[in-house]
């Protein structure tokens, strides 16, 4: 388990103005990520509420028990893209690229975004994934997401009987 602190300033370079406030996010394996307060609260409702509950950001460390260091690093990287761009085009593109390259990582990033209540990023990423499987057949969805069909033959027949009764 690494204990060194990683400097990741979301949205700004590390030569940020000295008065920039930061907090520390701790991944499940103990790795620490220093993030700019404005940039993270811009994305995460959970952290925004936490800071307001704690009455400030001084020395705040937020343990994210569900999020591993690689996933957190990827999520912060995508937040960075999101914070730098006014429209969602660029970040949508990055999420798409991640989905095509590392699907499991993308799904973990989605889970982490949901966990820290990064609502707009989560919505956007879900849309990317939803659009992807929209035109797929059942078999293609199973293959794409590596899901095993756990229906019995009888159950499958019953489901087929509930045909989409009316539409072409």
């Amino acid at each position: 388990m690494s204990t060194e602190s990683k400097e990741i300033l979301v949205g700004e370079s590390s030569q940020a103005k000295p008065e920039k406030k930061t907090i520390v996010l701790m991944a499940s394996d103990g790795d620490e990520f220093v993030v700019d307060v404005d940039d993270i609260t811009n994305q995460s409702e959970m952290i925004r509420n936490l800071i307001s509950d704690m009455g400030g950001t001084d020395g705040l460390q937020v343990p994210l028990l569900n999020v591993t260091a690689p996933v957190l690093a990827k999520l912060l990287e995508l937040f960075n893209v999101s914070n730098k761009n006014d429209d969602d085009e660029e970040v949508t593109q990055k999420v798409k690229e991640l989905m095509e390259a590392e699907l499991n990582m993308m799904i973990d990033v989605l889970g982490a975004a949901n966990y820290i209540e990064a609502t707009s990023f989560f919505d956007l990423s879900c849309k990317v994934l939803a659009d992807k499987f929209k035109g797929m057949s059942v078999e293609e969805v199973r293959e794409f997401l590596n899901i095993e069909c756990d229906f019995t033959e009888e159950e499958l027949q019953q489901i087929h009987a509930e045909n989409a009764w009316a539409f072409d």
Partner: protein
Amino acid sequence: MEPRPKQIEAAAAAADTALHGDVLDAIVSRVSPLDLLPASRVSKAWRTAVLSSPRRPPPWFILHHLGRRQVAAAFDPLSRAWRSLPCAPSYPSHRQGPQTQQVSSYMLSPGGGTRLCVLSVSALALATDPFGASWRELKPPRYSRTDPVVAVVGTRVVVAGGASDLEDGENAVEMFDGGASGAWVSCEPMPEAFRWSESISSAVVGRRLYVLEKQSPFTLSWFDVDSRRWGPARGVRVPDPTVRHAAIGFANGRLLLGGAGGIGTGFGWRAESVRVWAVDEESLQVEEEVGSMPRAMVEELVGDGGWGLSSLGFLSEGRFAYVYNPSYPKDFFLCELEEGGGCRWESVPRPACMEERPTHRVVVGCCQVGVEDLMMGKDRIV
């Protein structure tokens, strides 16, 4: 946030490698119900997510053609496509025959949206699903009526106005209590101001049925299903004095009034604007403007065939409203009411069926459609 033992973390991390729980639900909620039909066969977890999704998708717009061969077309905003419904709505079959049937739509609350209804001298049949595949039949109301307002509020069915066979019965209101008596009861008649109304627009808000006279002086009133009485009737002072046609709806938690304004007089009148206002449910007066339709869309709405705009079609549900021209039902516009106020407008592509059968009478509907509505096994049809 307390630290958890290592083994629980490990278990959580292992589970996180698959698509499940909240994330799966969130993805499912972003896809059209039609696209979910295959998803419901992927696995048990997916099936559960598809069938239990608590989402509020945009409502579909449904065109029911009333021809010899009844067909319907439905617009699904999530996939932005019209789908044709080759199997006709199965009207209660033993009622078909020489007797006159009036096919229209009724409003449903809670749940929202509209469904088909068929009124004849022998029955009032109410569709229980968006496409008219299954029906519930009631005895007919006492007065025979032409184009009454029909609404289902909880377990009660309200039928108002349109009565013709008795001199003082035109405004008669009857209510059927499906939960208790199982019979029609007479209620306080509609306010006198509606006696000569040519057409009425209606909306259900909570326990109240609101009705609006669609033309000046835009009389608005409401009927309470619990007390069976009417509230005050008032003319709505529409902020745009050029508004000639109006209609009401309920969306985004507010009572809305859509109004078409224009220039000219008599037959020379031409619509130039469509605006949407929020109306206070108690004072029955306009509170604020919610949105204004882009000018180019108003042009399309009025139509190039010289039909003009002789009334305003306005159907709403959830956070959405459809605007259309009832005498030229080819162009439809979807208005999304945004959370912080304001609207986003989009044109709905033209349905092919209206190009093929432009003169057929249609009944329009607007309601949310779930996967369960599309999975209609025979056992669902009653």
